[in-house]
């Protein structure tokens, strides 16, 4: 090699090394940024689980604790009828109320001390899923079939072509078997988890009092097991066969997942009160509009011909009275 060629080689190699160094520095910085951002994502995910857990507490006091054949309505974590712990379908009669202490007599379905675990995932398809795909308006607008005239006489968008649908629309339209889909599929959805959504977030609910709960909100791959021993115990007792298989039967895998997840603890209290025992004057004080007027509880009319209108209850499942982040991780959750 000539001296000139050697010099060129040194210069080119030097520049390449410099560029490689810069590239590596850039990539390392970006990777570090992404890893740090993952902490934010996990924290946010765990906080979403707080909302999910509160929703569970609200709904489970009224719904969902019956059997497959008995979908009995519940009346709250403290039964609004008799003051005993619920949820339960039947209120206690006078003799039962006299014989029992409402503050200690256990709830039949979710007694104090019970823990429930909820690993979350996204369904392949939710119930009643609809597609955002744009389609032609299927409503006939030719006016030939009076019963099927749309609400608007000039709907927008207009069908671009004659859609050829029959005049009568019935349930069989959902069950035409196209692509194997049936009406039942539409009603029930597809609960199989999407593969990218599993092992990301979960919550646990422990009932600590008649209306009080300790929530654990997690973002990570432990599926909400408190520790490996809990999963192992569930497996050995037959409560959940194969519980440890999610971790390959290896406690170290669980420990690694636990070390990389976010866990937040909150105490909450449920209240049977629904929001807003008041009215909203939807017609702006005095003039009737197209909503109902003079409904139930037309409170405090200012004038003899006045009318205030409907109550403003946001839900019918109760409310969360207070939320308290637990400062130090509790030993028993």
């Amino acid at each position, binding site marked *: 090699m000539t001296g000139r060629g050697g010099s060129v080689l040194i*210069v080119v190699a030097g*520049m390449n090394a*410099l*560029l490689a160094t*810069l590239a590596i*520095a*850039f990539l390392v*910085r*970006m990777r*570090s*940024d992404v890893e*740090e*951002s993952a*902490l*934010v994502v996990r*924290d946010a995910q765990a*906080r979403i689980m*707080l*909302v999910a857990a*509160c929703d569970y507490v609200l709904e489970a006091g009224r719904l969902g604790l019956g059997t497959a054949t008995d979908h009995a309505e519940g009346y709250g974590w*403290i039964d*609004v*009828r008799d*003051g005993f712990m619920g949820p339960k379908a039947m209120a206690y009669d006078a003799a039962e109320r006299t014989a029992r202490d409402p503050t200690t007599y256990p709830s039949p379905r979710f007694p104090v001390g019970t823990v429930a675990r909820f690993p979350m995932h996204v369904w392949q398809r939710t119930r009643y899923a609809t597609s955002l795909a744009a389609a032609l308006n299927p409503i006939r607008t030719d006016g030939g079939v009076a019963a099927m005239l749309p609400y608007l006489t000039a709907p927008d968008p207009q069908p671009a072509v004659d859609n050829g649908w029959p005049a009568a629309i019935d349930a069989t339209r959902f069950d035409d078997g196209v692509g194997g889909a049936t009406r039942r599929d539409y009603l029930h959805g597809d609960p199989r988890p999407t593969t990218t959504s599993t092992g990301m977030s979960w919550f646990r609910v422990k009932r600590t*009092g*008649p*209306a009080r709960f300790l929530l654990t909100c997690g973002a990570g791959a432990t599926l909400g097991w408190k520790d490996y021993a809990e999963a192992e115990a569930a497996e050995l007792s037959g409560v959940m066969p194969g519980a440890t298989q999610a971790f390959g039967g290896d406690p170290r895998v669980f420990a690694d997942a636990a070390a990389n997840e976010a866990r937040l603890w*909150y*105490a909450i*209290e449920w*209240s*049977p*009160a*629904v*929001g*807003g*025992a*008041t*009215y*909203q004057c939807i017609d702006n*004080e005095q003039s009737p509009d197209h909503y109902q007027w003079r409904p139930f*509880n*037309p*409170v*405090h*009319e*200012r004038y*003899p011909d006045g009318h205030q209108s409907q109550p*403003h*209850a*946001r839900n019918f499942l109760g*409310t969360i*009275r*207070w*939320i*308290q*982040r637990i*400062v*130090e991780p*509790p030993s028993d959750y």
Partner: protein
Amino acid sequence: MIRRGFTLIEALLAVALSMTVVLTAVAGVRLAAQSVTAANRNAVENGLIRAGYFMAVDEADFWRDYDDPFDATRQRLRGYDAARRRGLPFTPFDATVMPRSGTPGAEDERGWDPEYQWPASDARTWFHGNLVEHATRTQHRFGHHEIFAHVKEEPTLARTFVDGLGAATPAYAGYGQVRTPHTWAANQLTALKNALGYYGVTEYMPANTIYGVHGAPGADNAYGSGPGDPLAADDTDQGLAHEWCLPSGSGGGVQWRFANDDGDTAWPRGIYRLVRDSTFPVIPASATPAADTTPWTLQTLVAAHGRSWATDRVAASWQTGGIPDLLAKAQMAIAVVPLRPASWPAVSRATMRYLNNCRFTALNKIRWISPVTGARSELSFTLVATSLRGARQQRSPTPTGGWARPGQPTLDAP
């Protein structure tokens, strides 16, 4: 003959080519270096925004900006105005503020029981009035139900009312002295309002509360300034306590009106109607706690927690400023990194807690200013997190006591 060296043209070409190569290389290296610099700058900015996020969510869960459980100098919302008998959101429920007496679980129980979970089956927790009954333009807006629920156990209900709709309507005779069966809820409502302010009472009471009580609480309602003040006339056994249900509108300054003036209505209301056009905020001791050398006085803070803030308008003279005034007093701005290199973006976070339109809101804003372009950006979000009651239950009543561990005294049970 052996030719050595270059011709001039060869040399010039070689120099030109070399320059091209070198300039290209320098441009490439410079571009790469600029990319790394930009990446570093972005990384610093992202890191500060992440720090701001974690500080914001930590604040949402622990309320340290409002009350630092380790620093007695930053616990000004624990104050109590003894002259006016009013507290603030972090005032401990001690024997002065919330004295306990009576029989636990009975109507005569007074003070705060942190373990009581307000079962709907307990008649103590019910609203005992008739919202439908029509007796407008009197102070009889629960109907004649002051004989069932009252702040006093034995009020004198002697006054005769005349329905305001016309002379033809009959007069309603008074009852004389009665023994009222339900006094617990009215006293809880009054005591919580006086101990915590308006934001606090709305958070502590159940969501379906009707805010109003029969009978004035007497000396507890110490804000009346004398004859002619509507609050002074409030001290009667009959009729509704004015502070709850008479809207403001009498001018700026201290108003002590829980009700807003929505629709010119003047009767007890639920939380929706109360905060549809107005707001109950938590007012910090200072909007800029790190730099403020003149924090607000106790009296100012107490007054700020005892009024309804109009937020259906940007500004109105009779509402002392509307939304801008509320933002100026309720929103705290805190630098994420107070001392920073000039090349770092200025990142701050803002916190504000308020009740509006039935929603208890913990609003967080992370703002940053680019040191290069000066561009301002903001990330705004709300959180479901620790409520005021949860924050009070987290804290030791001892000024430097820090966090309360399970079973230890708290601000709710000192």
